[in-house]
């Protein structure tokens, strides 16, 4: 015997219901459909059309089953959506920059070239971002489907939880200005190092950076650090600044300042030949101290300021 349209419809509905609900809904649904078909036939609709019309009125069996089982037809509902986006943005704006810097660090340590390091760090950051998107979505979709978890969730929102006005982190103008200054300094360094105007006896350009350090590619890390910390600052501006952002900012500052200061103090950052050739042999010491003090102060104030901003935001 070939199954009727009703048989197929009921089977499609029952398949998506918990086993304990099935026998009861099976019998009731068949009776309801048969009643509806009878009602239409009495009104003069041909038998074949009557069944189709009755089933069409009941609609997609997936929806009907969800309605019977009291199951949501959305991935993440309004009750959880705000928490979901908040978690995702915090994770993205802190973990991704750190992954970028971390992988670039490993690449430079291993002596990979600029292209390979950039590619690896970029890919790792992308993969980290996808993981964060996927797992936070999966987590909240599960919570949405477990009523016990849904009910236990969350502190209630209260206007007292944020006493001060929400702190937005740095404003874009400050970030763009800082980025431009850093770009000009970086460009000047590259030109000094590779083009001139200071040359050695053989006519090759001498730069202010120690050649062995320059050739190792370790300075590439500074570029990654800059990208990561600009990214954190921008994200912080749009999502609000909190302790996760402050911690990421602190880690980036330490990763930048400590190596630069240690290298400068140990004499392996600046190139004494550059200062000798430009007629200022003492310059290597003076500029070295200026770098140590300026970088140390800037990083320290930014480090502290990150936590101060997070504190004011609470």
């Amino acid at each position, binding site marked *: 015997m070939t199954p009727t349209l009703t048989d197929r419809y009921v089977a499609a509905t029952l398949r998506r219901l918990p086993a304990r609900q099935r026998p*009861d*809904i099976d*019998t*009731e*649904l*068949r*009776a*309801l459909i*048969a*009643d*509806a078909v009878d*009602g239409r036939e009495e009104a003069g609709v041909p038998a074949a059309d009557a069944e189709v019309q009755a089933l069409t*009125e*009941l*609609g997609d069996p997936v*929806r*009907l089953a969800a*309605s*019977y089982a*009291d199951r949501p037809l959305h991935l993440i509902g309004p009750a959880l959506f705000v928490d979901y986006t908040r978690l995702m943005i915090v994770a993205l704006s802190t973990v991704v920059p750190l992954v970028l810097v971390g992988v670039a660090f490993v690449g430079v340590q291993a002596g990979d070239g600029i292209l390979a390091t950039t590619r690896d760090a970029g890919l790792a950051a992308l993969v980290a971002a996808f993981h964060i998107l996927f797992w936070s979505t999966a987590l909240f979709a599960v919570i949405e489907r477990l009523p016990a978890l849904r009910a236990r969730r969350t502190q209630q929102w209260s206007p007292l939880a944020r006493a001060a006005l929400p702190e937005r982190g740095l404003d874009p103008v400050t970030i763009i200005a800082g980025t431009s200054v850093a770009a000009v300094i970086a460009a000047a360094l590259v030109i000094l190092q590779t083009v001139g105007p200071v040359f050695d006896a053989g006519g090759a350009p001498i730069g202010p950076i120690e050649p062995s350090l320059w050739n190792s590619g370790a300075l590439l890390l500074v570029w990654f650090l800059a990208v990561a910390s600009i990214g954190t600052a921008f994200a912080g501006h749009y999502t609000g600044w909190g302790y996760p952002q402050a911690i990421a900012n602190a880690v980036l500052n330490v990763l930048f300042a400590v190596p630069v200061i240690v290298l400068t103090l140990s004499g392996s950052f600046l190139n004494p030949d550059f200062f000798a050739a430009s007629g200022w042999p003492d310059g290597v010491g003076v500029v070295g101290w200026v770098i140590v003090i300026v970088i140390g102060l800037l990083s320290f104030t930014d480090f502290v300021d990150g936590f101060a901003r997070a504190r004011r935001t609470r």
Partner: protein
Amino acid sequence: MIDDDVLATHRQELRRGSVVLACLLVLRTPDYGYALLEALDAKGFAVDANTLYPLLRRLESQGLLTSEWNTDESRPRKFYRTSDDGSAAADLLIRDWQQLQDAFAALKDES
């Protein structure tokens, strides 16, 4: 000129919940799903079959309706009846409804 879709949404919002009260009132005499659907339709409560049938089960699990299989006729049918809790809930909802009606009437007179 009011947008038809906007108007339809507002009317739907206003009617939402009225089906529950209508069910509790109609089912003071026991009845089965399809007959209830017809009865509600005849009395002007537009409700879809795929909304009503799961709703009946939800009200039953909340204790507002009770159910019983009737096998006297050719096909077995599940009959629903408003429970004592359901009657109490219906009284409360009716009172709310009347308060709303009075409030609307007062608002209309003021303007």
